[in-house]
């Protein structure tokens, strides 16, 4: 059963005429890591909110079309608005979600240790979340959402506040979760250079419509993605600007293989 299915979904925010989503259909199966890319305002964040059943229920607005989704964990791009406000230590912050679900105390302790370790924030366990840097807090919030152990993961710019090492850790973790734990993962990101490394599929959204969907190599090498989309990876951009034959390589490794 797919973790998430959209069938011709349209969604309007309150008091706005133009739909944020205008007939979107897609499916995310266990094991998939689908990267949603698009220019700012294309609707990627809205897509995740609808998939998490937060829109229209919490955001207000009107929804049309069919949305089938297993219970989801969602992480929004601004960590400082995601902290529970009820936890005075990092460990309690990670435990917040599972505790609300009524999970037993022993199981909560196991999950907290497991996910703090996987996000490498165990050394911050006793710290007050308010004293963390943006990057540290983002990893703590991610650990807190993952600790709810949902089958569908919705991540909006999960590496926005992270340094390169932190970002690499998160992209690797996302790929492993899909592959080894059969999670269905939907990631909205503007870090296009990372997409070929972690994504199994790419969906390009433009003004609330799906312009293209498929494997990263297919979607990210289309010329139109430069002319009317968010662009592609840095290497693909260099190759295109150099006027070299399509399809462009996506990563540095691809480029070196092609040129050497």
């Amino acid at each position, binding site marked *: 059963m797919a973790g998430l299915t959209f069938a011709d979904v349209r969604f309007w925010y309150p008091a706005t005429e133009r739909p944020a989503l205008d007939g979107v259909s897609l499916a995310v199966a266990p094991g998939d890591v689908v990267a949603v890319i698009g220019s700012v305002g294309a609707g990627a964040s809205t897509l995740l*909110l609808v998939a*998490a059943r*937060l829109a229209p*229920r*919490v*955001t207000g607005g009107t929804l049309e079309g069919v949305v089938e989704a297993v219970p*989801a*964990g*969602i992480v*929004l791009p*601004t960590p*400082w*608005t*995601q*902290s*529970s*406000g*009820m*936890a*005075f*230590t990092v460990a*309690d912050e990670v*435990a*917040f*979600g*599972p*505790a*609300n*679900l*009524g*999970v*037993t*105390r022993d199981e*909560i302790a196991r999950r907290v240790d497991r996910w703090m370790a996987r996000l490498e924030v165990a050394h911050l366990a006793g710290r007050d979340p*308010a004293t963390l840097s943006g990057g540290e807090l983002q990893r703590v*919030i991610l650990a*807190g*959402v993952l600790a*709810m152990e949902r089958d569908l993961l919705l991540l909006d710019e999960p590496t926005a506040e992270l340094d390169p090492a932190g970002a690499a850790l998160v992209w690797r973790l996302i790929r492993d979760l899909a592959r080894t734990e059969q999670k269905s993962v939907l990631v909205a990101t503007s870090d296009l250079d990372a997409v070929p490394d972690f994504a199994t599929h790419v969906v390009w959204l433009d003004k609330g419509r799906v312009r293209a969907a498929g494997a990263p190599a297919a979607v990210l090498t289309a010329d139109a993605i430069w002319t009317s989309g968010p662009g592609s990876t840095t290497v693909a951009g260099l190759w295109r600007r150099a006027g070299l034959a399509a399809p462009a390589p996506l990563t540095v490794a691809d480029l070196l293989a092609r040129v050497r």
Partner: protein
Amino acid sequence: MSGRHPFTLLAFAAALPALAWTLPAPWGAAGTFAVALLLCLTPGSRPGLGILRTAILTAAPFWLFLFLLHDRATALAIALRLSTMIASFVWLVAILPPARLVEALVAAGYSVHVAFLFAATLSAVPVMRARAQRIVDAQRCRGLATRGGPLTRLRALRALALPLVLSALHEVDERALALETRGLSAGARRTALAPPPDSTAERVVRWTLVAACVAGVVGRVLWRV
């Protein structure tokens, strides 16, 4: 004392001022003030003497103001009652970490929303204060002068207060999304992470304190009548 159940600590911190106002002045209030100061000496999060010093320093100005305003007897009665309230509160804040009260509320079965409101408020205040100062700095770097006549300063106040309120309101939706998705309204009874130990002895103490307050009130009403 700091190991006692949070509700017991609350009971003491509420009973002492209540008794101070209901027992006949000034001896009743002198007694409750003495007890409150003794409590301050019990080792809390900071050494007892530190708490005692804070309690006395916070209460001291009122003694001065009251003796300026009233005759000796009235001033003494009010000062002792006020000092009991101040000392009890300063002791409670020093000895009861908010996290333990949150756990006690959750363990006692109160809706997690009650615990959320209390804890989220405490953690939101320093964040918002830091943001307010950051906005003051940022607006001054955009040329905003904060000195000048009252009218210019009122206009400047608008450029400092409005961004804080608008940005805070904007984030309420994102906070609600985060809390919703992390199960704050999940309906399942929330698991207390570290329920503070309670005992029948403490429950007895709590109920006697409540009874003492009621007796104090009834006594004052009857005695006054």
